[in-house]
């Protein structure tokens, strides 16, 4: 990989916006499974497998499934965040494999937030 110059930082940012950014990119949904030590200890790997399997069964090419670190509320892990294009992200808590399946079907595919599993929408205050 070539060594980057300061200008390349902007280029990488733009490239990322097109690939994983819901705003400009082609994706219409982004699902994040939180996998810090707290999440993994609570069973996040199984949630990840469940979602990967569910995604593989579908022809959809515009759903991003990714991981992240601890989201902060360690006592409610496993957690997952679902963000649909044009909508604020939704944080789900106390997720298990059954709930993950339902969230995938109802929210990611059909666009309806699963209220009983959701903790909150939106983002935290940064900066």
């Amino acid at each position, binding site marked *: *990989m*070539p*060594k*980057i*110059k*300061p200008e390349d*930082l902007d280029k*990488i*940012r733009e*490239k*990322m*916006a097109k690939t*994983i*950014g*819901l*705003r400009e990119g082609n994706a219409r949904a982004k699902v*994040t499974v*939180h996998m*810090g*030590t*707290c999440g*993994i200890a609570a069973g996040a790997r199984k949630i990840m497998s469940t979602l990967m399997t569910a995604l593989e069964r579908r022809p959809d090419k515009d759903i991003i499934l*990714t*991981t*992240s*670190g*601890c*989201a*902060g*509320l*360690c*006592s*409610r892990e496993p957690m997952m*965040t679902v*963000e649909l294009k*044009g*909508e*604020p*992200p*939704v*944080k789900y808590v106390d997720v298990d494999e059954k709930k993950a399946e339902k969230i995938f079907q109802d929210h990611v595919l059909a666009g309806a*937030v699963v*209220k009983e599993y*959701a*903790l*909150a*929408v*939106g*983002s*935290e*205050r*940064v*900066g």
Partner: protein
Amino acid sequence: MKSYRMHLMLCAGTGCVSNRAFRIREVLETELEKRGLQDEIAVVSTGCNGFCAQGPVMVVQPDGIFYQMLTEKDIPGLVEEHFLKGRPVQRLMFTSPGEKAPVPTMREIGFFGKQRLIALRNRGMIDPEKIDEYIARGGYTAAAKALTSMTPEGIIAEVKRSGLRGRGGAGFPTGRKWEICRGANGRPKHLVCNADEGDPGAFMDRSIIESDPHSVLEGMLIGAKAIGANFGYVYIRHEYPLALERLGKAIKQAREYGLLGEDILGTGFNFDISIHRGAGAFVCGEETSLISSLQGIPPEPRVRPPFPAESGIRGEPTNINNVETWATVPEIINHGAAWFASIGTEASKGTKVFSLVGKVKNTGLVEVPMGITLREIVFDIGGGIDGDKKFKAIQTGGPSGGCIPESLLDLPLDYEMLAEVGSIMGSGGLIVMDEETCMVDLARYFMEFLKDESCGKCTACREGTEVMYKILTKICEGHGSEGDIRLLEELAHAVKDASLCGLGATAPNPVLSTIRYFSNEYEAHIKDKSCPAAVCKALFQFEIDEARCTACGACKKNCPYDAVLGEKKVAHRIISEKCTKCGACFDACRFDAVVKLPNAKKRELAAV
């Protein structure tokens, strides 16, 4: 005094800025001037309000109209239609979903609403194993700025002005330390990231490294330029395998991009980082012990001065900072010292990350502005005591932190205030306790940890902590005597005074603060041979409440010592001589008939 008829609150949080909010501001101001509106309409850049997915956002006050997904092309039309002609532009407004939002916003949730993320700015938002995602959220722009357009003195001045203090516990002004290291005579100079995080139960540093390792690398890169160091070490405790793995990957990816190594970003600056693992010693969190360990020498603290900034690894100037401190530095370079200094209190600027654990409903990792009260942390963020029991105390700063009672909960959190009440900020552990915690047992518990971790170099710490532990154990076992408290205090002060390092200097804090605020519990243990919280086994009894007992026999069946007497339809009874306080009956009873009775209470009832 200008009186504006309209305020345009334009969001300038990270999300909106990465979608050109600054450019929009420029176009907006130009357009307003073109129309002669600049004296009537003010443009205000605000912080992130959370609706990042709809950004860039702008709220028009006093109308309260929320514009979203703005682009530079929208601005001329917007200015003409809304601000000049008074017709809000429907197309650009936020339309809420068909039904009223059923799920509360992050800001409405107590746990998240009071937090303000700086060190944890990327938490939950990026894949820590992909450097491109860190860059996508603005990563390495501060390093680029520092390396290409700032002088070392300029960087140090900025960090000094920000008021950033070391987040590892001592709270020494970071900019000042960098200045000392820069000015020191020795060569070469070294940087160290202290990722030993020895406090049991603390996981701030682990979480930062697991979730956002590049934030630490970027901070170190900036520090390297400021101080004139070309090599850095991350000393990470052995017990963090996931953090170690992610850090290793991050360093590898940074090297591939040339962000570590030679001629970084084409500026000719060289800097690289290596990882060293700890081997299970709490004392290695102390900087001079850490340096010894790095060099392969048994870890023991040494006299200071000289401080590591002047003489550290192999006697060469070494700047050591904690993980959280390094992770905060890029934001200070990005947003400026004034921004950072605007958060927090007079002497404690910015935010601090705490691990909130114990008997609260919401346990996790929180980052809050300095100056927030402990009450807000326990009840608003923590959600109150689990099981709605009564709050008793909160220990701040780790195993050598003091315990703070309910009467002081409205204390604003900052370095000085905590020291005044006999506690410390420490690395940021917050342990919440309820009515079922015995404060004497707690002091004993932490003293056991600290006496085991004492390296042994200083007699006062080595012997003093051991003896204090023995006295506390004696008290908890019901053999406390008159004069024990005074002896504990004497020893505590001796250990504090005659220790070379922070371990000894702070080890007596739990004992001293519990004696200060919970002396009634010590008295109960020593004079009454009773444990009010019913924790110390020798000082309370398990009893069966006859009114509640249904004679189901569960307790009798579960007792491994045949200490329960009873038959069908007869209220059961515990034989105290046989009872070992194992608690099996307490766990087995479904009717809350087994109660814990502190000895004093039992005597009271017997006397009636």
